[in-house]
């Protein structure tokens, strides 16, 4: 099964703090995604990328930056964290052929902004 690794698993920061969430996939997938999950809202797309150097805006991008440094690595940056960004963050990846379009998720990062 495809592997997506997120770090850290848990993070606590203060309002105004700087946070970077990391995601690595070793599946040779082109697409990588960052979602946040909140009670009552389900999974919402923050940013995604279809290759190194590419970035696409998702549905809830405000307050977030992202960078895809290589095909394997996708980072989510919160430069001035706010309590509203307390959430469970998931990274996911998928390929572009019918044989590998299934989306696979990392284990998630629980972020608390105090």
């Amino acid at each position: 099964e495809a592997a997506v690794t997120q770090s850290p698993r848990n993070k606590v920061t203060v309002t105004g703090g700087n946070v970077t969430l990391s995601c690595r996939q070793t599946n040779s997938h082109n697409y990588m995604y960052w979602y946040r999950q909140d009670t009552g809202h389900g999974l919402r797309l923050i940013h995604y990328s279809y290759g190194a150097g590419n970035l696409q805006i998702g549905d809830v991008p405000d307050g977030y930056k992202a960078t895809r440094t290589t095909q394997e690595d996708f980072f989510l940056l919160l430069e001035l964290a706010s309590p509203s960004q307390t959430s469970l963050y998931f990274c996911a990846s998928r390929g572009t052929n019918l044989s590998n379009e299934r989306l696979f998720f990392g284990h998630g990062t629980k972020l608390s902004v105090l």
Partner: protein
Amino acid sequence: GDKVKQSPSALSLQEGTNSALRCNFSIAATTVQWFLQNPRGSLINLFYLVPGTKENGRLKSAFDSKESYSTLHIRDAQLEDSGTYFCAAPPGGRALIFGTGTTVSVSP
């Protein structure tokens, strides 16, 4: 409005019973995926579907792109089937949009 709508929002099952979950799309979905978020929070990909049906053990899923809906059937429910089931589809083929989930509780 909701582009991917799931029903019911919650379901209580006894072990050994059968049930069905539904996903309706207001977007032009050409594929659908179903996921289970288990009680530990992990999101597991259950199915990737083009129009048609697929079966995996006690789970069976169908996708009708013309009528814009998909179903997930659970047969002979077991305790380990508990969790939240999500369907998702990619409008325009790039990023999946998720429904808000069906929370399934299986009891002995």
